[in-house]
């Protein structure tokens, strides 16, 4: 299985600011994904990040609000822009090493005041 780390693990931010979350995988992976999860809820896919191409966003999520970078096969970032309290959530990255199953990072718990 892949080992995935995320930074920061948690943050408290002011309304209107932006936060960039980093996701590092210990080995090269083709596909990386970003999810949002409200406490006690399921996972909602934000976007798929593939190296060398633009991220693919799910319905309800746009690049201006959640810009994603994927500069190489082991790293990705998600930025939550112009934050509002509604963006308070847990943000998770995951990676697919080609066997269909996904391995998740520990998550970033974001609180927006």
């Amino acid at each position, binding site marked *: *299985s892949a080992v995935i780390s995320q930074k920061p693990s948690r943050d408290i931010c002011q309304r209107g600011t932006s936060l960039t979350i980093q996701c590092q995988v210990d080995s090269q992976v*083709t*596909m990386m*994904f970003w999810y949002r999860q409200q406490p*006690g*809820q*399921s*996972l909602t*896919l934000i976007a*798929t990040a593939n190296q060398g191409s633009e991220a*693919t966003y799910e319905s309800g999520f746009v690049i201006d609000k959640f810009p994603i970078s994927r500069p190489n096969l082991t790293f990705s970032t998600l930025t939550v822009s112009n934050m509002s309290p509604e963006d308070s959530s847990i943000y*998770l990255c*995951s990676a*697919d090493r080609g*066997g*269909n*199953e*996904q*391995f*998740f*990072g*520990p*998550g970033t718990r974001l609180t927006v005041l």
Partner: protein
Amino acid sequence: GQQVMQIPQYQHVQEGEDFTTYCNSSTTLSNIQWYKQRPGGHPVFLIQLVKSGEVKKQKRLTFQFGEAKKNSSLHITATQTTDVGTYFCAGPSRAGGTSYGKLTFGQGTILTVHP
């Protein structure tokens, strides 16, 4: 679009009792995966089922994939307090017939085990 429904939403059991969660997809799935998320943790992959009617076991956990490949179940025998957490099923999302590796997660079943 594709939907993956999971029931029950919550299950409270006494330690030693059995537990089952059920997953139903609106479309036929090429495979189904199960994940466990401990309280405060992140989802951890448990298993993937691929074949119609497949049954796999992991110690006290039994996973089944329906004959039509549209439903699945996870059964835990003689639950322990270490089984506490949320169990998610997930199937490949489909876009024009290709999943591109994306998954659609069920709503999850939150399991509480009382000692």
